[in-house]
């Protein structure tokens, strides 16, 4: 039950993009096509799942016992950056096909604040290891969902006849606002 609540809450109610404003850069930048959005979403899910485990172990088996929890920010970002590099290298060797699909998105993920954000949040919410992983994966699914929905809307928007000043980012933001409104309907679900 506990896990179910975490899943629903992080996919719909507290959607990381539309309610928490994390990962806006790829949301606005990458989401022009449904296909690329799916690719980005898959890459983020992959990295978030692994990084949640690593960050959990780092926090509770290194930082807390050594009493250096104040180094959290610096330790997390370095671990995430290294992890993304490692994932990229391993993927290239082990599964070239998957690398082909996700490869171009991986370097972008280091500066995706959603990944670091989730790492900090799961410590803040005092989740245990399994909860952390569930939280990370469902947050990433929420991210993918927002990205794909948004890409679908934007593919159509390109055909719309708009005032010049409205074209591009402004109308994208407006659409995101309406999407965020729709997602507000989920609040109170858990």
């Amino acid at each position, binding site marked *: 039950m506990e896990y179910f609540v975490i899943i629903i809450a992080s996919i719909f109610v507290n959607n990381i993009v539309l309610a928490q404003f994390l990962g806006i850069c790829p949301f606005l930048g990458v989401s022009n096509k449904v296909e690329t959005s799916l690719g980005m979403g898959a890459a983020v899910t992959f990295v978030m799942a692994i990084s949640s485990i690593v960050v959990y172990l780092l926090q509770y088996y290194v930082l807390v016992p050594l009493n250096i929890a104040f180094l959290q920010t610096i330790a997390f970002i370095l671990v995430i950056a290294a992890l993304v590099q490692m994932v990229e290298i391993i993927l290239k060797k082990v599964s070239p096909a998957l690398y082909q699909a996700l490869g171009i998105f991986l370097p972008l993920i280091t500066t995706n604040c959603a990944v670091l954000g989730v790492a900090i949040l799961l410590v803040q919410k005092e989740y245990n290891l399994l909860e952390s992983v569930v939280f990370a994966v469902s947050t990433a699914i929420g991210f993918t969902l927002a990205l794909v929905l948004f890409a679908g809307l934007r593919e159509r928007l390109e055909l719309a006849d708009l005032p010049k000043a409205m074209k591009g980012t402004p109308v994208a933001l407006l659409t995101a606002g309406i999407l965020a409104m729709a997602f507000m309907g989920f*609040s109170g679900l858990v």
Partner: protein
Amino acid sequence: MKSSLINMVMVLFLITLVCAAAIGGVYELTKEPIDAAKQAKQIAAISEVLPSFEKVGIPQEKSVDGDVVKIYEATSGGKVVGYAVETFSKNGFGGTIRIMVGFKADGTISGTSVISHSETPGLGDKIDKSKSDFSKQFEGQNPETFKLGVKKDGAGDVDAITAATISSRAFVDAVNRAYQQVKPYMED
């Protein structure tokens, strides 16, 4: 500078070393102000809900319903003047609500103050004193006679916030939890 392996390792190591030292130093420097700030916040929350007192003791922590209720005993001239109870409810519309409830020595509620909540702005957040008078109806009431339940539910004497019954219920739930925990202290 040239990117030889030794160079790279040395430079990164040095940078990390300097950075770690800087953070460590500042951490030691800010440790006291951070603790002081946390304590000041706690004291401020307590004095908001209790009438004047001289000092508060170390809180008694009680584990109930999967969380902790903290009871602070406030004394004046060695005499107990009241209890401040840090309590919670998990039934909020947006998750857990944490409030501080002050009880006078005779069990009368002297005040409440919201510590943290994630209720909907404009509706549920009216549990906060600065947003509406909802929480003021508890002041001066003794839960012995003032039934802690929402009037609309037929469960008690509390007027719920319009369009935010769930938040109101959760608030009442938290106050009730505080009262149940602090009750044994009153009877001594």
